């Protein structure tokens, strides 16, 4: 029941637009669904992030999910949030890049206690089908459970920190390329906050709003993005 209420709050904008009667009916219908099915983000949902990016979930099956960004590129992600995007394809169908796991088992970290770490290696293939010479090493640490606010409501998360690095071919010295601090919501089955730090810059992307399948309109999305842009400019000032 508590989970259902949270779900309704997250899809707040949608519920607000509907009449009270319709909302009550929808909530009633949702209560009939098993909690696990109703909790995860459903295909057709649109996620708006603090950096102004927007993504739509197209499908979720067999441990993979396909998202589409506002450039209509298809991003195939593993259900394991620690793995990088598995592949990206443009609207024309050209594959931009793909990643695949060469060694390690990042799944072991998903239910591991805080403090546990694990290293895995990923290979990257570019748009021409060529494998990158240097494999991408990831070392992830479980930081434990926490809570994050999305649209003003608390959301339980699991926190991880991952370092991506390459190894010098002879000296085997580490060269850190980026550090990712992730907050993953097991209920929504998605990463809701990412802090990315590279040797040159740092950026943050957090989930601001989720719009339920079939409930978006150009006007509402445009208004949300405009508000985010205004907030950003206000922050700069």
């Amino acid at each position, binding site marked *: 029941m508590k989970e259902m209420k949270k779900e309704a709050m997250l899809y707040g904008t949608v519920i607000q637009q509907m009449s009270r009667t319709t909302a009550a009916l929808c909530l009633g219908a949702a209560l009939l669904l098993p909690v696990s099915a109703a909790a995860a983000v459903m295909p057709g949902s*649109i996620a708006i992030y603090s950096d*102004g990016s*927007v993504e*739509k979930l197209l499908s979720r099956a067999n441990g993979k999910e396909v998202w589409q960004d*506002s*450039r*209509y590129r298809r991003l195939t992600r593993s259900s394991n949030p620690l793995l990088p995007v598995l592949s990206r394809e*443009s*609207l*024309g169908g050209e594959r931009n890049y793909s990643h695949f796991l060469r060694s390690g088992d990042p799944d072991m970290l998903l239910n591991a206690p805080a403090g546990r770490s694990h290293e895995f290696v990923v290979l990257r293939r570019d748009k021409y089908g060529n494998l990158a010479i240097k494999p991408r090493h990831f070392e992830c640490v479980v930081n434990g459970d926490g809570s994050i606010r999305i649209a003003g409501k608390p959301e339980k998360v699991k926190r991880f920190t991952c370092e991506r690095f390459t190894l010098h071919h002879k000296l085997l010295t580490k060269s850190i390329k980026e550090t990712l601090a992730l907050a993953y919501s097991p209920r929504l089955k998605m990463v809701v906050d990412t802090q990315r730090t590279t040797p040159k810059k740092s950026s943050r992307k957090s989930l601001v709003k989720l719009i339920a399948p*079939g409930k*978006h*309109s*150009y*006007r509402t*999305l*445009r208004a949300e*993005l*405009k508000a985010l*842009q205004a907030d950003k400019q206000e922050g700069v000032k």
Partner: protein
Amino acid sequence: MKSIAVITLAMGLLLGGCVSQPMRSAPQTLSAQQVEQLFAGKTVESVNRSTGITSFTYYDPDGRVLQSRLWSQRSGKWTVKSNGKVCLTFDKTQCRRIANDNGVYYKLRKRKGEKAKRVVAYRSFHDGNLLLGKNQAWPKVSHFRP
């Protein structure tokens, strides 16, 4: 002393000539024919340089235009004027010049007393209509739906 300076200057000029500089030409506005060739039958990805929002627009050779942005679509008409301005008509008509700056195309907006501003950058041009599935009907709304 004078001869040393002359030799140094000559060497400098010679070596300077060896360093390859990328050839950059001044931005050019396109003619009507060039605009027609660039857009007709293509699905074009563009980005609004002020909002950062991406649009995909299919320019049908028969004069219809279909635009998709943030999973919403609208349709209208497109024409090219003899002066090279491309006109898009949805709820209202807007005509703009297109410029080519070293292979990157831009839509220009020129207001009275101001320099032409690059308002839209074109990212890619794909052959055919990538916005409609085989059995999907051409939408008949001039404002974004949903």
